[in-house]
């Protein structure tokens, strides 16, 4: 092992340990804060809080702040690099902000009654004032977009709607794409293909990056449905990225990924059943975006298929269920995302989470093995 690699390893392990220690230290403060301001799950609008999950009502959400804030603070203080870490941290922050707004509006916001497309078309017909007619006509594409994407989301009466999230996530993805395409240089205009080296794809990398940032953020969010599930799987994913960045000798990314792993260890410690707090959209969207960006920044975009395996399986189960429901009128899974399917089948929460952790760890190992070829 070269001295540089050894130094990088020691430095990253130091970041990991520091992040874990810092997160453990302020976790009680966060818990107290969340309880004090009643940022907790409520049973009156959350149907998943039934039966054996009744005890989860009243559990604080936005526990993902533990990871987001720890990672952001440590990176800004000790690993700030204008070339490499500021955009990942910035996009993570932006996505986390979006998630935080959703979490808070879901708890404290009122019900939102949005006009359907049919309603808006009727309003155009009946309104007497020309400017109102103009306004409703102008708003038709937006309403149509909302109705189109709403089929993929549960009927949400509170918080930020799916279509609004998608727009904001698109912006986060576009920022990442700009950074990769313009700032990181021509080495990143390529796509790494397993067992086949890299191929130059030029500006096509932009939509690919936007897609992976949006898709991964939402996938992590979807998988965050059981105590410890998302946290444990993210540990494997970021640990895999840490190893890859060590192999590649990325001096900025290895400490960053190690910091995330450290903070996630503390988070998962408190998040395993019965959870002291839950990740919430603030953590899921933020860490999902960061996972995608870090893999893209290492020029190993397709490794995400392995490193985000459980998250993608979860989100694909939702897509398959929605398509099957609307096209064929039948369920493929008893419930989606996939972890709910197994719950309905009678698996215990612990069983599902542990098995998913193991599968994720195995697939990440496979990903690392492939990356070495």
């Amino acid at each position: 092992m070269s001295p540089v690699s050894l130094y990088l390893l020691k430095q990253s392990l130091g970041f990991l340990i520091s992040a874990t220690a810092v997160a453990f230290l302020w976790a009680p403060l966060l818990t107290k804060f969340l309880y004090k301001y009643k940022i907790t799950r409520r049973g009156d609008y959350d149907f998943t809080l039934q039966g054996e999950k009744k005890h989860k009502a009243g559990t604080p959400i936005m526990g993902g702040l533990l990871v987001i804030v720890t990672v952001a603070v440590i990176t800004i203080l000790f690993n700030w690099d204008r070339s490499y870490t500021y955009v990942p941290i910035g996009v993570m922050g932006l996505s986390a902000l979006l998630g935080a707004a959703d979490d808070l509006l879901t708890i404290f916001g009122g019900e939102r009654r949005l006009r359907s497309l049919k309603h808006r078309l009727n309003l155009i017909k009946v309104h007497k004032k020309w400017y109102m007619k103009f306004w409703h006509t102008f708003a038709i594409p937006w309403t149509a977009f909302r109705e189109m994407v709403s089929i993929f989301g549960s009927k949400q009466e509170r918080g930020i709607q799916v279509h609004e999230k998608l727009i904001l996530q698109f912006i986060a993805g576009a920022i990442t794409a700009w950074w990769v395409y313009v700032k990181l240089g021509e080495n990143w205009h390529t796509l790494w293909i397993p067992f086949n080296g890299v191929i130059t794809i030029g500006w096509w990398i932009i939509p690919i990056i936007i897609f992976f940032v949006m898709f991964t953020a939402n996938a992590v969010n979807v998988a965050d449905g059981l105590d410890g599930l998302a946290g444990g799987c993210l540990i494997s994913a970021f640990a895999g990225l840490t190893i890859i960045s060590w192999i590649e000798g990325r001096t900025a990314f290895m400490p960053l990924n190690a910091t995330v792993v450290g903070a996630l260890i503390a988070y998962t410690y408190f998040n395993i059943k019965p959870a002291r707090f839950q990740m919430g959209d603030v953590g899921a969207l933020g860490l999902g975006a960061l996972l995608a960006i870090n893999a893209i920044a290492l020029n190993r975009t397709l490794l995400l298929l392995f490193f985000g395996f459980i998250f993608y399986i979860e989100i694909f189960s939702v897509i398959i269920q929605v398509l099957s429901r609307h096209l064929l009128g039948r369920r493929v899974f008893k419930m989606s995302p996939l972890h709910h399917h197994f719950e309905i089948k009678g698996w215990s929460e612990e069983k599902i989470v542990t098995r998913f952790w193991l599968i994720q760890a195995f697939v990440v190992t496979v990903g690392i093995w492939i990356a070495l070829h």
Partner: protein
Amino acid sequence: MLSPKAQTLIHSYLNLPFKGLLRLDGAAGEVGVGVRCPYFNNARLKQRGQLRVLVGKGTPKEIAEEAYIISVQKHAGLFEKSGDCCLHNEHTGAPMTADDLRKFLIDNRLGIECSGFVTHVLRTHYLESKKTDILKKLFIVPKHQIARWLISRLRPIENIDVKTYVSERNTVQIIGITVGYDYSKVMAGDVITMLDKTLPFQCNHILVVTDVISFVIPNPLRRGEESLSQSPNDGQRSLVAARLARNDNEADQRITIHYAHSRAWQSEGKYGHGVSEGKMEITAPGKDLLAQTWSEQNKTGEQNETFTEAKTARVIEIRRLKV
């Protein structure tokens, strides 16, 4: 008779496959004892793009599974984590019975409508007896209506209604004004269709013929009639002679058509409706369907609402699939 699998399917609709359900007397019963599938028609709710089980077109298994999922979602506490029915309601502690489950199904709009029931039964019957999938054979909408045609191919059962079975492209008339009333032609797997009911809030209806029993009156009965012909009473003797003089086939053959359907009788209220079996005794051969004796749930004549509904239909006939 219908094929064994089709009969099992009807049995499943009459006893939905809920695991671990208790019988009314509290003893553990066989699977799903007594939960008769309710009637549900989507015509008023008009849910679109929905699961077929939620629009009255599900199979017994789908209905039972959906009940479990809805119970989980709505905290109803009717099932255990294993999927078995609870011995006691999780919330109220009251013993669970088949009636509780039926009420739950109806309150949550789970059930089957007439054409959905008939389609599932006939599909099973033809798959087993003729190795033919009727969903691929039935004409639902013409191909030039591309979108509707595509939807009907993707979701055939949801798009099949009574009119599909009345279409000359799909079925032929067996009993009706055009071909006459020879009830000996009726077979299991035929359908009884009621079109254009005249009363408000009544829609077209369809029943599936499950069995046709045809038998000849036993000889002793006939011998008894012959002995009466020797009676000293002139009036009685001439009456019996006239009966004996009738065509033997017409006089001796008795046909009973057994049917099954999903229906909602007004007299049964909110929680009484569902899949049901009945029979039609051919007491007036050569005459139309309304001249026969319909009985269901031990009710005949005007008390049998299937019969009274049939009377309100402009067209009532028995048809057979062209498969």
